[in-house]
Every structure is written in C-alpha cells, then in structure tokens.
C-alpha cells in the first residue's frame, strides 16, 4: 500500500461534512415521509372540513397528540431542510470562514423556526381553553 503523502491535489480533508451529518439527513428523511403523511392525512382528510375554519383548527388542537405530532414534524423538517441546504452550499466550495458563519446562521434560523412553531402550536391550543 502506498502511503498518502501531502499531495496538492488531495487537499487536507475538510471536516465540513461527515458520516454523522449525513446520517442526520438520511434519518430525518424517511422519518419525514411518515410524519408528512400523517400531518397531511390527519389535517385534511380526518378533520371535518379539512381545517378550513379557525374554530375547527382550535378544536383540533385540543387533542394533545396533535401539537406533539406537529412539533415533531416541524423539528424533523427544519433539520432535514437546513442540512440539505447546507449540503448544496458545500457543493459550491465556500471558504472556511464563510462556512462557519453559515453554520451559525442555519442553527439560529432553525432553532428560531422550531421555537416559533412551538409557540404557535401552544397559542392555538390555548385559544380553546
């Protein structure tokens, strides 16, 4: 086996992406297929008018399993979409410092989206109390 010398053509491997990050994408993916199916079917086919009135949405959110399902779905889709976006950006070979900033932006944006979603779900649920 030849040894790997520091050739300029195989640059020092960048750790911008690795098995674990990819596994995050590949696990949230199928999870999403299931959660999305549930979200969609339950929201539009099981509820009476398909959640097309305010009062129906509020009544629907009284069942605690609904906000739980929605928040789980939101967390998965935010994780999957932002790590997917990051993958596309990595194809464009961003500089290291740009990537660092981008990572922070994505994390902050993602966490905010989930926090917002939790707030919204709980607000709606509380309107029917």
């Amino acid at each position, binding site marked *: 086996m030849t040894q790997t010398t520091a050739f300029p*053509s195989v640059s020092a491997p960048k750790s911008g992406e690795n098995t674990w990050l990819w596994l995050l994408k590949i696990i949230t993916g199928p999870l999403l297929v299931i959660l999305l199916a549930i979200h969609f079917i339950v929201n539009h086919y099981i509820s009476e008018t398909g959640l097309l009135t305010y009062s129906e949405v509020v009544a629907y959110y009284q069942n605690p399993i609904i906000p739980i399902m929605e928040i789980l779905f939101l967390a998965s889709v935010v994780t999957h979409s932002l790590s997917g976006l990051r993958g596309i950006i990595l194809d464009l070979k961003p500089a290291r410092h740009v990537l660092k900033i981008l990572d922070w932006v994505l994390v902050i944006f993602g966490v905010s989206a989930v926090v917002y979603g939790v707030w919204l779900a709980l607000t709606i649920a509380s309107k029917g109390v």
Partner: protein
Amino acid sequence: MSENWNITLKVSRQKEGEKPHFDEFKIEVDPDEYVLDAVERVWAFMDRTVCFRHACHHSTCGACGMRVNNVEKLTCITYIRDVTHDGGVLKLEPLRNFPIISDLAVDMGSLYNRLETVGVRAILPAPEAEIENPPATWDSADQQYIRLADCIECGLCISACPSAATSSEYLGPAVLAGVQANGIKGNPEMLNIVDAEDGVWRCHSAFECTAVCPSYVDPARRIMNLRTQVIKERFTRLFHKA
C-alpha cells in the same frame, strides 16, 4: 459493406490567445468506423492544427475521451452510426471539468495525481478483482493470478459528474471507486480522506459516472458501497471507544 455517409464534424477549437469556437469539417465516413477515425482523418487531411489525444485505439489506455453530441464517450470504441446519421452532425468537445490544453485535449494531471495519492491499484490479485463467475473458494494456486483493474483512468466519469462541475477538490468517481476497491478495512488512513466534504458525501446519486464509464467500473455502485464501508467503520470505532 455499408454505404458511406457524408457528415459534418463540428470540432471545438481552443488555442492560446484565440477565441474559442467551433470549426466545421465535411467528410465522408463509413458509419462502421469509430468517431476517433473521423477525427484522425480530419487532422490528417484537412487541418493539421487540430489537437486531440489518442493512443491504443482499443479502450485500454483511456486517452481518447471526448464529449460527442453532449455525451461523454470513448471515441475509439464509439461507432459513428451510433451517434449520428447520414447528413448529420458530430459535435466534438473536450471533457468537462479539466483545464483545456488545446482543442480537444485536456490536462488530466489532477486525476492522475489523486489516483496515485490514494493508492489506487492498476493490478489486482485475482481473488480481489471481482471477475465474473468466480470460484466459490480460491485455492493457493489461484492466488498467483493477477488482473488489470477495470478503470482505464479516462476521466469520462469526472466530466459527467454534476458535483465535479462546481467543486475542483471533489475526489470524484474514479478516485472513490479506486478507494472502494482497496477497501477501508485494510486502509484505515483513507477513512478521513473519503469521509469528508470532498469525499463520498459530495456524491448525490446522479449515477452519471456509471452511465458513461466505458470500462464496467460502475463507479456509482462503488461509491455507494464505499459509503456503507465508511458508515460501518465509524460505528465500529464509536462502539469500540465507548
């Protein structure tokens, strides 16, 4: 014998200091000839400044890769009748994602450097060579047999790969396929090189590399298998440390 066809060769020209453009050459060909024959004839009898690369003329050296009508082909084994018709056009462009030296010849240095750096083997012992219908077990006498690896280092896969279009540091299908053939288990120092941004995770399963490979390497399958090897190795290390 088939009748001769009259076709137009549209050759991409790119010389230093000149604007890149296409030159058209009308020639008569036997459709059972290869695209490379047509290029050679244009060079020999019509324009000696056309620059292209060729050597073995039997799909072993990997020198004559080009884009023929927008698709990567090894021109020494591409029949003219498979890519155009009588009265048709044969558009010839150099491979993508490599710097152009002149006209249809590109600088393959980055590919060769990488293949050598990661230790891709050109000759494999028969038991490792993935031959068709291998024996159930190899006896000691069989161990002496060796086989040339399938990859002829032609670069068609890198030209066709969408990830290679935007990333000059992506190792690319040929290199990753070579690492797969060596295996991560026997070469653990390769793990950090392929389990990286420019390694297996830049592949997005387009399978274009396998679609254009003229030598049955099936790089896409190998990259998928390499991913499995990498994941297995990472999990093994995780649980052994803990």
